């Protein structure tokens, strides 16, 4: 095929990607958007296969068959609760692919003379670095999310200095490659150091910050693809990589804002965190926590006009999405308005809780983001908090000395009554007591989330 036609088809693929992402801006068009992007990918692949620089197809066939098989099994088997692990894994594979492409390009590089060669070498080094860090960083994130590794920050004293040292060494090796004096030995050493760097960068980051890390690695996987595009002078890689890179960065920012943390704080701060004067849990709760029963809450719900359900990851852990939907159905049959209030970090990655609720067939227009639902709490009769803790902690609004001060929260305490479904008074990720539980308008419903919700539904149904 002539070059003009090839570039034309690559442009078509890039346009389909852009159109696909545009489709994702509305739930109604999202399925079609995703299909559009997939067709774009197909176009790009087919055009590439027709390229005359491809001489043999055996290796390609093997890779495509194996990859499709693994990809299909992963995509159809994965539980919705495990979606963060899945995305982490896919990010890692993307990074790994870019790493291999960069290494192959270096070995296959015909001429390193002149500007063309220089650009290619710089791009190869950048791709190697980002690809390798994405591969092993994602592997660590996956292991933490899958609980193969403990969620707490891991590492050793001086890990930050060690990382800096590694980074400098990587730059030095890259420098010698770019100057043209490097051989494949240097290339391997550079890749190994970058792979180690990916591990030691993500190890010290705590489990609660994993959503930020996944979003950032998502961005890296895109940037690695874009860098690979610079190696080959391929514009479709540059454009699509840039799109994904931008997407990941924006999501990273959203997650950081929602957790009231700076990106630097997430990436480098977690080991050195000093514990300030932590509020004593007994003092906060002493004699003020009211325990309730499903019957009592059931009666409360019957006279309600608007109920807001605030789910957290605890709900997904208890697999209680369907039970919650049943409760909402029972309430709606009685003419009670039910909405779901979702904090941006509910769940373990951006928008995770929405997917879990959608799986339980909750209509998406009933899921309200934090800003909108916060405006409704004052006209809400009952707010039911299930498996969420820190995101409802009024200390974030009121206690200037608190470590979570300034974090945007769901103002459930503004509702007439708050019902908290929880196993015990144990603290959330932030390790803080929640003064919400001691409020006058708060009722605790102790027990397993799923069982408690089912009992509540039964209580509501019985009273009809």
């Amino acid at each position, binding site marked *: 095929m002539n070059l003009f036609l090839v570039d034309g088809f690559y442009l078509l693929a890039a346009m389909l*990607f*852009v159109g*696909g*992402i545009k489709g994702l801006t509305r*739930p109604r068009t999202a399925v079609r958007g995703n299909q559009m*992007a997939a067709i774009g*990918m197909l176009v*790009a692949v087919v055009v590439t*296969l027709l390229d005359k620089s*491809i*001489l043999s*197809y055996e*290796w*390609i066939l093997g*890779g*495509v068959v194996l990859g*499709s098989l693994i990809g*299909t099994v*992963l*995509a*159809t088997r994965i539980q*919705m609760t495990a979606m963060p692990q899945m*995305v982490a894994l*896919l990010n890692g*594979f*993307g990074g*790994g*692919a870019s790493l*291999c492409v960069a290494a*192959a*390009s270096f*070995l*296959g590089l015909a001429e390193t003379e002149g*500007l063309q060669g220089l650009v290619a070498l710089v791009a190869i080094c950048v791709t190697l670095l980002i690809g390798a860090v994405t591969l092993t960083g994602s592997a660590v994130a996956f292991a933490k999310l899958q609980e193969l590794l403990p969620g707490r920050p891991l590492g050793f004293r001086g890990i930050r200095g060690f990382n800096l040292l590694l980074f400098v060494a990587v730059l030095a090796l890259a420098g010698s490659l770019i100057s043209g004096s490097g051989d494949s030995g240097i290339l391997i050493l550079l890749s190994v150091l970058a792979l180690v760097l990916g591990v030691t960068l993500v190890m010290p980051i705590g489990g609660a910050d994993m959503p930020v890390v996944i979003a950032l690695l998502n961005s890296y*996987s*895109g940037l690695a*693809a874009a860098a690979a595009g*610079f190696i080959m*002078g391929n514009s479709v*890689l*540059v*454009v*699509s*990589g840039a799109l*994904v890179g*931008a997407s990941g960065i*924006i*999501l990273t920012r*959203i997650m950081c804002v929602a957790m009231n943390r700076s990106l630097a704080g997430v990436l480098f701060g977690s080991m050195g965190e000093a514990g300030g004067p932590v509020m004593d849990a007994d003092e906060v709760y002493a004699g003020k926590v009211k325990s309730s029963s499903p019957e009592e809450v059931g009666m409360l719900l019957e006279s309600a006009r608007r109920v807001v359900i605030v789910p957290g990851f605890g709900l997904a852990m208890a697999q209680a999405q369907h039970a919650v939907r049943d409760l909402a159905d029972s309430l*709606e*049959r009685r003419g009670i308005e039910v909405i779901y209030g979702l904090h941006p970090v509910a769940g373990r990655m*951006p*928008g995770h809780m929405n997917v879990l609720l*959608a799986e339980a*067939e909750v*209509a998406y227009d009933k899921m309200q983001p934090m800003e909108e639902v916060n405006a409704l709490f004052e006209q809400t009769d009952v707010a039911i908090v299930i498996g969420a803790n820190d995101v409802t902690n009024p200390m974030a609004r009121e206690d200037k000395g608190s470590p979570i001060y300034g974090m945007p929260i769901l103002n459930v305490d503004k509702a007439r009554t708050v019902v908290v479904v929880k196993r015990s008074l144990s603290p959330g990720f932030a390790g803080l007591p929640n003064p919400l539980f001691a409020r006058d308008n708060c009722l605790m419903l102790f027990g397993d989330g799923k069982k408690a919700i089912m009992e509540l*539904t039964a209580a509501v*149904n*019985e009273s*009809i």
Partner: protein
Amino acid sequence: MEILILQISLFVLAVFLGVELITKVPATLHTPLMSGSNAISGITLVGALLAAGAGDGAGLWVPVLGMIAVTLATINVVGGFLVTNRMLRMFRPRKVSTPTAAKGGVSHESVPG
């Protein structure tokens, strides 16, 4: 030189376009956005195909690395688009939300027919 500048411009413009588009994606769709954009980043597959198909003249390592890259990128692409599709199908608007409630498995004995 001109090609490089052209590509850098493309990169910068695509970043701007991405920012514009993605800030419009509602929070509800952020997880599918991540898995979907992840599948798009599997575009490295194009580079992987070229490396894997380089033929015998390129030595052994180029096609081997190429094949590993093709495998990883294909997992990325196929897995990413399929799982995104699976998620997005759950977000399809439903006309009636009650019929499925009847088989919800909660004590419905007490619900009058």
